[in-house]
């Protein structure tokens, strides 16, 4: 365990050095894992801003369902993490609640919550990465934007998944507050889209599997999946995300992501 920790921290130091253009020796597998993620990130650059509607279907072991209806607005920020505004519509008791986040690759994210009953804007701690989002099987960190610096990498090989030739890459979270020791990610070799992620908990046993279905390409460049299904292997619960009304380059700007826009978000 200790050697593993040492290895992980050594790896994160190494990858940071690489990212900051200091040449240093990574093993061939580590270099290839990093290269794949850099390429995936690069291919999705330039979306500027996007809006989409998300329907969350929470299912427990007995098959009981509960719905969350959410609207998302995001703004691409060059050389930093993205900005996002999350607006809740269902369940009805949280309708009007909105969440503003300025994410950063290394520094702590800045997050504010608007509580409509009191009309109160509350700055909240962004340390809660591993906790469940709205009682679902998605953790906060599963829904945050992908930044290359958030992980260190190891290429595991090629594998066929759903008829597509895919890279299999292991990712180790750099953040000590992550709920995971590692993730194994399947990325297709053609378009560099993520198709499946296995999550391993802090005890390094398989916790969840996330599958991406129905990829569509928007403005001839950006691939987004219509459906993301998260299955928790340990508690038998699952959560399905259904995305609709994806739109890109809608004209959103910094002024759509401040305290005022948080208060009137719908």
């Amino acid at each position: 365990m200790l050697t593993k920790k040492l290895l992980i921290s050594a790896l994160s130091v190494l990858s940071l050095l690489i990212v900051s253009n200091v040449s240093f020796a990574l093993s061939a597998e580590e270099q290839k894992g990093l290269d794949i993620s850099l390429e995936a990130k690069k291919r999705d650059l330039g979306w500027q801003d996007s809006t989409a509607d998300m329907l969350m279907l929470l299912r427990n072991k007995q098959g009981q369902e509960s719905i969350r209806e959410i609207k998302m607005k995001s703004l691409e920020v060059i050389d930093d993490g993205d900005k996002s505004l999350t607006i809740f519509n269902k369940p009805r008791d949280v309708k009007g609640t909105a969440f503003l986040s300025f994410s950063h690759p290394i520094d702590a994210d800045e997050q504010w919550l608007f509580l409509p009953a009191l009309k109160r804007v509350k700055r909240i701690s962004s340390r809660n990465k591993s906790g469940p989002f709205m009682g679902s099987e998605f953790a906060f960190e599963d829904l945050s934007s992908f930044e290359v610096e958030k992980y260190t990498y190891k290429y595991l090989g090629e594998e066929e998944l759903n008829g597509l030739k895919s890279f299999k890459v292991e990712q180790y979270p750099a953040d000590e507050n992550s709920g995971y020791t590692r993730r194994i990610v399947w990325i297709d070799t053609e378009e560099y889209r993520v198709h499946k992620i296995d999550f391993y908990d802090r005890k390094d046993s398989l916790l969840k599997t996330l599958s991406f279905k129905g990829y569509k390409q928007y403005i001839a460049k950006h691939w987004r999946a219509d459906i993301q299904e998260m299955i928790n292997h340990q508690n038998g619960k699952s959560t399905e995300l259904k995305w609709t009304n994806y739109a890109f380059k809608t004209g959103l700007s910094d002024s759509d992501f401040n305290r005022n826009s948080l208060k009137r978000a719908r």
Partner: protein
Amino acid sequence: MHLSLKNPLNKPSNMSLTKALSKVFGSRAKSSVSAMAVCASLVLSNPLSASEVATDVEFEASGNIALEQRYFFKEALYSEQLSHSQTSFSVEPEFYWQWNNGNDSLLFTPFYRVDSHDEQRTHGDIRELAYIHASDDWELRVGIRKEFWGVTEFQHLVDVINQTDGVEDFDGEDKLGQQMVNLSLVNDWGIVDVFLLPGFRERTYAGEEGRLRGPLVVDEDNVSYESSAGQQHLDFALRWAHSVGDFDLGAYWFHGTNREAYLSPSPQAPSSSLVQYYSQMDQLGIDAQATLGDWLWKFESIYRSTSLEDFWATQAGFEYSFIGVFDTNLDLGLLMEHSWDSRGEVALGAQGSLMQNDLFLGARLAFNDMQSSELLMGFGSDLDHNAFSFLIEASRRFGDNFIASFDVRLLQSNEPNDLLYTISNDDHAQLSLAWYF
């Protein structure tokens, strides 16, 4: 229900602010009236399919209906008060219209409560009836609104715009709608809000039959004002708020009618009620929060100057969060806050604060389950004399649209000068069931 995103958002960024302002002020009355007319006709025709009728105006109706049952453990201290059980029913719908891609909107939130015993608690209010116009770097809000300021949890010291709807609940967090014209300017160095507040709202107090009051009822008809304009005084407020890295800061100046009345026994002997006197005040306030990892450090302070007194008060403390305690999904937040008031300990009936040197401890447990179950415990203690309050609030969702909450409040004081002493028979439990639509 979705924003139409085919057209790019209105972007008057190249328009100078003064030009844009004159445009809005000049045509505001006309456009808001016609907007009202459009909305009204939509309501009359078919509210729920409004977006189908006119593609540029979208309409939404939501809200909640709640049934609340209180049970007081002890007999009433004063003869007219209700004995043990108090039932009430409330309704708060919300109607929302937006057009111009959401840059213009109208919000209407009426509220009404019927109470089984306390006729003062049977009351209605327009919580909100406001038109909002949003532009890139400024926003204009006109009408009846609610505006919250502050960062602390156990006392909202700097929150001053809205009057407290005192009959609603024990915590004073319910507010009456306030008429206002509010211009909000977004700058790189923070958001500046200018408020013009025409018309003052008197605080609501428990009636004769109501519990949670002292021996004398506050007379709603015997109200006087320092200003000759009385309730029509035009109040003014200017606030700056900004986030700098881990710090969220706010500062303001308020000039106008004091939201807290000076209460005194009615002149005829024996006094049968308390009369209200609303002074003018100038108040400076600051609030700050540092968000450092799992720690939230909070500070609020006010300096208030009236013709009767000048004083300082602060509320300061922290909140610490444990994420995923005991290897579960549970989050535990621990809170501690201290209240201080320069007026110190005061005799009952004299002016001063209940929270002159009080310590508050709290624990918040979020279960992070499908039902959003939560448990909150709070303990308040007066450090100058023997008085404490204790509360538990538990809530959970049932199905998709019901929220059940169960609250227990215990109040104890051995100091006859303390307000808590006069309501020390009012320990109670409260169960409420709300349906959200």
